[in-house]
């Protein structure tokens, strides 16, 4: 899995960080990136509305109510990803996109190379093969989650503890840049 780009969105869906770490995607204008971030933010919000009604079964409300309810009893929290019912990932021919949302509403978006096992086979597959590849995309999602966790740590350290950073504004820290580069390589 090769990471192409990293975006960070603030609570309101504004793009506060954008880094094309590796080439592989089309370069857009600064304005287009803002539109892209806004669209993803909107889609994420719509998805959350769509989710429970797809088969009439409401599975998300309980998961969303207390994502880290066990903190009080066990003293440790399980998952920093507050993204339960929204958009998780997008798979296309040429890239995969993953969304991570912190409990405070910050969205981290990572765009990676596609999973070679699933989509690079152009020939028509047999049904058995489809079953055999079970959960291949779930594995890449887990892998992306690993990146997100480290990214979140770097963000908390080098952005939130910087006195020259004002909340919800674009991130310009060189240290953060350097650490992101270190994480990806």
């Amino acid at each position: 899995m090769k990471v192409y780009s990293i975006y960070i969105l603030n609570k309101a869906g504004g793009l506060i960080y954008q880094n094309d770490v590796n080439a592989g995607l089309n370069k857009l204008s600064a304005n287009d990136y803002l539109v892209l971030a806004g669209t993803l933010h909107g889609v994420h919000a719509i998805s959350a509305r769509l989710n429970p009604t797809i088969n009439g079964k409401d599975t998300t409300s309980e998961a969303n109510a207390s994502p880290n309810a066990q903190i009080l009893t066990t003293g440790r929290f399980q998952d920093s990803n507050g993204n339960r019912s929204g958009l998780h990932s997008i798979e296309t021919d040429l890239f995969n996109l993953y969304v991570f949302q912190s409990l405070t509403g910050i969205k981290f978006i990572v765009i990676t190379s596609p999973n070679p096992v699933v989509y690079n086979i152009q020939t028509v597959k047999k049904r058995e093969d489809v079953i055999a590849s079970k959960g291949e995309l779930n594995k890449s999602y887990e892998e992306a989650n690993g990146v997100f966790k480290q990214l979140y740590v770097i963000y908390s350290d080098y952005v939130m503890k910087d006195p020259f950073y004002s909340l919800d504004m674009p991130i310009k820290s060189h240290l953060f840049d350097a650490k992101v580069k270190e994480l990806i390589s």
Partner: protein
Amino acid sequence: MSNEDIILPSASSLSTLSISDISRTGFGYNPSVGPASNSITPETSNILLNRKTITLTPTSANSIYDKNINSKKINEISLSSLSFLFCEIVNWSHKNSKGIQDLETRLNGLGYQIGQRFLELNKLREGFKTSKREIRIIEVLQFIHGTFWKSIFGKVANELEKSQDVTNEYMIIDNVPLISKFISIPKDYGNLNCAAFMAGIIEGALDSASFHADVTAHSVPLDGFPLRTVFLIKFDESLMIRESLRFS
């Protein structure tokens, strides 16, 4: 909307809580339930007995004030809390300052008091039998670079150098200054270095050891150490005379 909502806007969210919400919030006083919410149930007693809650009262036996001041044990505090505190200190000083130079002076001044006090504590902890008063410049610098640095920042400073051109200038070099570890200086702030606070600590300590000096912090990044900082210590001319009278 009832009157109650207007008078007590905060009560509107609380009133939606019910008895069954205890399990959701864990342990604590639920205003809509009243005293019953603090009753000891198997669940809450479990939390209490296993000490999963944090005592916030400073007079508890765990408080830092209740410990023996002479204790040799290293008391560690969270780097995150320190960073957030320092972040706020920089912000506050910045708000009150007239410029970058002024901001550095203010940070230096805040550090100065810490240096004065910490030298006292440090010497006390060394104990009267083993401790001695440094009277030579090189000795006091080694003390600052070693013992003092270790007890305040948890590690020894990276280098200690003497200026080749000027006789009264010395340099202590730290590759990653602890308090500015997470701070990235924006371009339009010029050569501001938040380690001016640490320079203040050194200056305070040196001054109260009666080695009058001006200490300034300068960023000298190296590959792999973008935060490398040189603390330039410029001793007072009178000290050099004292030194030569005493030891030559």
